[in-house]
């Protein structure tokens, strides 16, 4: 069974929100307490199965720091799905979400799938953003929402699979549409041709 599709994903959000940790959990099923800031951009791949089909996820992990925007902005265009990540224990990371969303609208393709992630949900005593507040933001963005914990492995697999499925079905549907459209075009063309021919004679 070969890989039938490749999906490009992007992870964005404030520095320290836990973007790289989420990816590390999803790829390696591991967690590290040390904070190593991402420089520019990192790259990982993982193959998942949807409806018995193998889908290769190509995931770009970006640096959250403002000074790397120049580099990271270049990666929005090719992304089919974007995770916007905030830290539930850090209000600043939540308040910057609108800016991240604006960036998505400005830089990525129109039909990109967005998922909002509230990370570090294991740190209940430090929580500043309630799950309701997170949900409300996701409604505002009109996107799916997950609370996750890289440390305790909560919600991460689901978030990635939801993303992959959404893109898989969406592209499959549009491909079918395209095939349908092509067929119709062929018919129209041949019709045209026949009328023309007849007209000519």
């Amino acid at each position, binding site marked *: 069974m070969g890989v039938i599709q490749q999906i490009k994903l992007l992870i964005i959000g404030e520095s320290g929100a836990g973007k790289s940790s989420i990816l590390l959990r999803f790829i390696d099923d591991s967690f590290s307490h040390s904070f190593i800031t991402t*420089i520019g*951009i990192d790259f990982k*791949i993982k193959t998942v199965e949807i409806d018995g089909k193998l889908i290769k996820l190509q995931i770009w992990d970006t640096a959250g720091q403002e000074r790397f925007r120049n580099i990271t902005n270049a990666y929005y265009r090719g992304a089919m799905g974007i995770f916007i990540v905030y830290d539930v224990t850090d209000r600043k990371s939540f308040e910057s979400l609108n800016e991240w969303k604006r960036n998505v609208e400005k830089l990525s393709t129109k039909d990109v799938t967005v998922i909002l992630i509230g990370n570090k949900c294991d740190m209940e005593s430090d929580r500043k953003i309630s799950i309701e507040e997170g949900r409300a933001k996701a409604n505002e963005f009109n996107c799916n929402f997950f609370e996750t914990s890289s440390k305790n492995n909560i919600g991460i697999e689901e978030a990635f699979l939801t993303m992959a499925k959404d893109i898989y079905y969406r592209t499959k549907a549009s491909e079918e549409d395209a095939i349908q459209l092509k067929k119709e075009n062929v018919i129209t063309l041949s019709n045209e041709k026949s009328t023309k021919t007849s007209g000519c004679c």
Partner: protein
Amino acid sequence: MSNTSKVWSIHSNYLPGQVLNLKMKENWKSKKDSTSAVRKDSTNRKSIENGIFVNGTSFSPSQSSPLSDVTTSSSASHQEEKMLSDVALLNSMSIRYKKFQALLENNVIDLEQLRKLSWSGIPEEIRATVWKVLMGYLPTNTERRDATLERKRKEYEEFYAQTKSGGLDESLHHQVRILYCWAIRHPASGYVQDCQDVSNVSKLEQDTLTKVEADSFWCLTKLIDGIQDNYTFSQPGIQRQVARLKELVHRVDVTLSNHLAKEQVEFIQFAFRWMNCLLMREVSLKTTIRMWDTYMAEGSEGFSDFHLYVCAAFLCKFSQELKKKDFQEIMIFLQNIPTSNWGEKEVEILLSEGFYYKSLFHNSPSHLNKN
């Protein structure tokens, strides 16, 4: 034997430079009088705990001469063979060390000579001092040293006072503190090479700590001076370096360059970090420190121009592997380049290759122009 091996195990906790140093003494002392070796070593240990070793002055060349005793009386037993090779290593280290020591003892240090010598690596025990001289922080004229240091440290103290009143950028100041804490946690770095862990440092006097902080600040400033536009808005220095690297690789390894282009690998995707972090994410800290010996010996352009040539050599080193890979495999490979088993030899080859490229292409910019 039981006595000496006990001493050895105690000291095996310390850093390589220190261990070898003590082991050498132990080897010849044990031939004569093992108890005195224990005494000698425990004095050393005490002084380490007292933080006297900060600049590493324990390596006295006179201690190495009795090594010849061991050499002549050795038989062919396995253990002694091992010991002999250790002795040979120690001897060459000792000779190197003596050369540095002789240079540093002059009233006016010959900077040109010091550069030449440092290019091939600086002994750990005196690295902190040599780096400060090479960076131009410590005056080559020994008479002016104390006054300069005192002035610079006072200047820093004034900065510090301003910080408290909100004058200097507070985050910058914190960063220095953070960098210093980081240095403590990575014991191979200059100042704290003999401190095994943070607890040892806490024994340092507050006064010493302030001095170390001031020196760190000034040395960092000197280092960043040369690569400042790497870290200004939109990082033009890095953008330029990455573009130059791309051209350079096209010159020295056109098949690799073409393969990367064919696979649509952009240099910015991997080399941005190489420039931003000076390859520190790609090699071990020990390797980085050795590389910096050479960078500093290269003078003011070591961290900019010379680093570029080293990066080219670094990429081309993996040319064969890279050429067999597609886009994804290349990206994965370049994010986890197999350098964990690198030792002194590998770093030195890399630096030599960098030097080779530099001599070919530096000051001949037209060699770099694509036709």
